[in-house]
Every structure is written in C-alpha cells, then in structure tokens.
C-alpha cells in the first residue's frame, strides 16, 4: 500500500527520463490512408498465411469442373444434340463454352458465401478482430467496407485464375472474356453484402450450413449455369430468373462468349448493383446494431 502511494506522489514528475516504452514521443503521421483501407489491410495481411493454398484451390476448382462437366459431359451433350447447340439454347456453340460462364458465376457465389459467413462470425466471436478495430480510429462502416472489399479481392483473384484456366481449355471466344472478371466481382459483392448483413446478426453458425444447403446449392444448379432455363416448367423458370445468380450467369455469359451486349445485360448488371447496394445498407444497419451497442 505505502509503495503505491509513494509512486503516486513522485511518479508523473520523477521518471520522465526513463521512458522504457518510448511513450510520450508522438508518432509522425503521414498522409492518411482511408480507414476502411486499413481494415482491408488487416484481412489481406492475415491472408498471407493461406494465400498459396487459396490460389491452389482457385486453380484446381475450374480445372476439375471444366474437365468433368465442360469437356467430359460436354462432349456427350454436343454429340447428342440434334440441330446444333444454338438450336438447343446452348449459346456459345459448344456445351463447354456454354457452361464455363455458369461455373464461374457459381464458384464466385460460393466463395462469397464462404467469405461472408464464418469469417464474419469469427471476426466477432473468435479473433474478435472487429472489436479490436473498433477500439482504434476505425468506425463500424470502415470495418464493414474493409471486410467487404476483402471478399471482393478474394473473388477477383479467383476470377482471374478461373478465366486463365478457361482460356487454356479453349472455352473462351475472344479477349473480351476478361470482362468476366469485373462481372465476377459484381456477382461476389451482390452475394457478399446481404450475406454479411445476415451473418453479423447470428449468435451461432448453424444457419450458415442451412443456407448452403437450401439456398446456395439450388441456386448453383438452377440458375442457367448447366442448362438453359427454358428446360424448366414455366413457373419455376420465372422463379429462377428472379434469383441473383441467374443474372450473374447471364452477364458472365455475354462477357465470355463475346456476344454483343444487349439491353438485358444492363438489366442484369442493374439487378446486381441494386442488390449490392441494398445489402450494404442493411449490413450497415445490422453491423451498427451488433457492434456499436
């Protein structure tokens, strides 16, 4: 007890010379980086450890799918088509060309799901990295935007690798196919923003696997990736056309097949932009409620 008081009395004045922690010297500050970029920086830094395995996964996925479904199953489909691929509604002239944009959009959706569910929960409950950021000059919107930007970077990387692999498979018609990369980022953002808005409200991760099974898998199978929607009965066709992945697939297909851009493509892009914006606004609200209570 006495010891404390002695320190208390002499403290602040006496020992300034010592400064074992170097505190008190102010740090020089440079031109400031936007706060959300600093949040993005954390997720990128953390990614370094698993970057190579992520890249390997981004490479293996299209190789397997394009080989099995595009080339393997596709060869069979092309062989049995009567009247040509186009007559069957398979734009692109071959099943491989048809299915490639569908696989890209589908894989981007799954990456967005993976990156905006469990990692959000982890950032709240496990590493508590959101809370750590919020004790610094970062605000809730910076944390949200930084994380969303990271998901976009993950999608971008995967899309670049995918397009390169697709080119090696001869699945792309023209150099214009690189436009599929920004399309993929848009699809990723359109899924990630609302998913993050949802994930941040969860106490446990149970809902995420349900989401995968009941929403993402059906979307993957029935959004025009593997067969033209006109194969579906009327009502289901309308339902499928209302889903975001359908619009992503359609947009990716225009980009990858090199077909002329149409008004419908503006509609597809608009749908995805609006979904991203709605998701972001919702996420801002749910993030604030959860993190700034």
């Amino acid at each position, binding site marked *: *007890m006495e010891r404390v008081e002695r320190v208390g009395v002499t403290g602040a004045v006496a020992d300034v010379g010592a400064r074992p922690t170097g505190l008190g010297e102010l740090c020089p500050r440079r031109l400031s980086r936007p706060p959300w970029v600093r949040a993005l920086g954390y997720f990128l830094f*953390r990614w370094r450890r698993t970057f190579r395995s992520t890249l390997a996964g981004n490479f293996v996925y299209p190789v397997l799918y394009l080989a099995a479904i595009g080339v393997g199953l596709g060869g069979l489909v092309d062989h049995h088509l009567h009247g040509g691929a186009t007559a069957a509604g398979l734009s692109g002239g071959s099943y491989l060309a048809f299915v490639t944009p569908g696989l890209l959009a589908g894989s981007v959706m799954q990456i967005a799901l993976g990156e905006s569910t469990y990692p959000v929960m982890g950032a709240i409950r496990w590493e508590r990295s959101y809370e750590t950021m919020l004790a610094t000059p970062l605000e809730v919107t910076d944390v949200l935007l930084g994380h969303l930007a990271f998901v976009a970077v993950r999608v971008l990387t995967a899309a670049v690798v995918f397009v390169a692999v697709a080119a090696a498979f001869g699945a792309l018609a023209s150099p214009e196919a690189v436009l599929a990369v920004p399309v993929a980022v848009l699809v990723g953002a359109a899924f990630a923003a609302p998913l993050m808005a949802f994930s941040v409200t969860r106490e446990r991760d149970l809902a995420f696997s349900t989401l995968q099974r009941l929403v993402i898998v059906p979307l993957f199978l029935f959004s025009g990736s593997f067969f033209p929607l006109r194969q579906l009965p009327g009502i289901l066709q309308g339902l499928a056309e209302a889903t975001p992945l359908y619009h992503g697939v359609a947009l990716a297909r225009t980009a990858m097949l090199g077909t002329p851009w149409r008004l419908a493509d503006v509609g597809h892009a608009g749908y995805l932009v609006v979904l991203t914006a709605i998701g972001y606004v919702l996420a801002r609200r749910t993030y604030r409620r959860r993190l700034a209570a």
Partner: protein
Amino acid sequence: MVRARRLRKQFGDFVAVGGIDLEIRRGEVFGFLGPNGAGKTSTMRMIACMSPATSGELEVRGRDPATDGPAIRAGIGLVPQEDALDAELSVLDNLLVYGRYFDLPRRVIRERAGQLLEFAQLADRAGAKVDALSGGMRRRLTIARALVAAPELVILDEPTTGLDPQARHLVWERLYRLKREGVTLILTTHYMDEAEQLCDRLVVMDRGRIVAEGPPRALVAEHVAREVLEVRVLPADEAAVVAALDRHGAGCDRLADRLCAYGDDGDALLAAVLATGVHPEGVLVRRASLEDVFLRLTGRRLVD
C-alpha cells in the same frame, strides 16, 4: 481527461449504467471497483467511444464521443476484458497489424513494437504464435498492443482477472511504469487488493451506480474503520454477540457464515465478544480493506 454527468447506458429496458458522474484527471490511475454486472465494462466502452451513451454528458480527451469518436480513440489504448488477439498471427504481427489501424508508418510501428515487446517481457517470443502464450503473456501482449500508438489514456478492463498471483504482480509492475511516464490509466477490477495497490482514486460501483468515491485509504477510513474483527459463532449465540458489539459502538455486518465488526482496535472488539461468555468457533482480527467498504455499502460481497 474524462468528465461525465448523469451518464447512462440502457440495453432495451435494462439499465446497465444508471446515471453516473465522473471526473478523471490527467496522469492519475483511476479505478472502477465492483462485482460482476456492476456496469464497469459498459462504462469503459462508453469512455472508449465504442458504445454510445443512452443519455447524459460525456467528454473524453476534451471532445464529445458522439461526434469525435475516431479522433478520441486515436489517443486511447484499450485493453478489453477478454483478450482479442489474433491467434493465427505471431506476437509481433499482432502489434504490427494494430499499429496500421492508427495509420502509423511501418517503420515507426516496427520500432515501437520492439520496445513494447521488451516492455511486456515478450521479446524472446516475438515470432511465437499467440496460441502458445500463457494467460499472463497474452494479457501483457494485449497491454503492449494498446500502447502501440502512444496513447495518453489507457483503459484496462479487468487487467488481471484469471491470472495467477505471479502473473498479476508482473502486470501491476508494468502498469506502475506506465503511470510513472504520465499515462492516465483507467482500470476496472473486482479485486480489492488490485484497486488498493494501483489506484490513486476509485469509485465503487454496484448495479450501475457509484456508491462511493475517493482514494482507497480514505474510503476505508470513511466507511469502515481501521480494523475488522471476523467471528464465527453458533447461531444461538449470535444475538448476544451482536448486542455486545453494539454496546461497544462497533458497526457490524452479518454474513452467511460469520459476523464482521469494525473498530479502530480489533482486539478490544474481540475482548468485548469474549466478555459475553460466548465461545467463538473462529476469530480473525485484520486490517480493514475495500472489500469491507463494499460490504458496508451494499450488504454484499465483491467476489462470491
């Protein structure tokens, strides 16, 4: 450094902090002593500008948290109640990543991280994964991390809860050093010895309210007395003992398993009890502490 008037925090209808007044001065170590659920963490989060006040006035580092959160936080180091370290990153990387949130140049962060690892006695662990650290090391790393941006105010929410005595003393010793450098420290604890050891001034908090305020020794002097007599007697003898203590003019609290009586001379109190002819089953005369202040003011104990 911190001024609050009628500061209040509600979660729905639940009042976590029920209108408190505070005045925390630059350079002092200010404590919040109270049991679990008293509202300490809620108060720390408001001061750290991480959680908006429901009502009342709050000023931190001369600014209003409602409008200047980022600027205020730029000068605050927070040690949260639960360590929020990234287990996938190394000890050093945890510091580097944190410094980037404050937009410090990498060179500056590296230099400071080196000094802080020395300070936290973790220099030989710089490359280790956080998973491999003991509880005490993690706590020191969290403290080091809070210091990366050279804050003038450091807020520590239960800095030593869950640590063994040796690890606690090491943390205390580091906190003294910060204090000597002129850093303002705010800490919460439910350990009365921690509050007595570290704090220049403190508030005793209970159920969202401040029930006492002052320097630790002054609080003890004001609310209790110099010494405490603890006696255990059979239930049948209790009334007689209480009556004897009353005649002696000593304040008295009944606990589940014993009586506590307060006076300047504990042995005299004991003599008064023995004079009744009762044979106590156990007796202890000791110096009064903040624990007794809490018991006197609330009728309950700090740590169950």
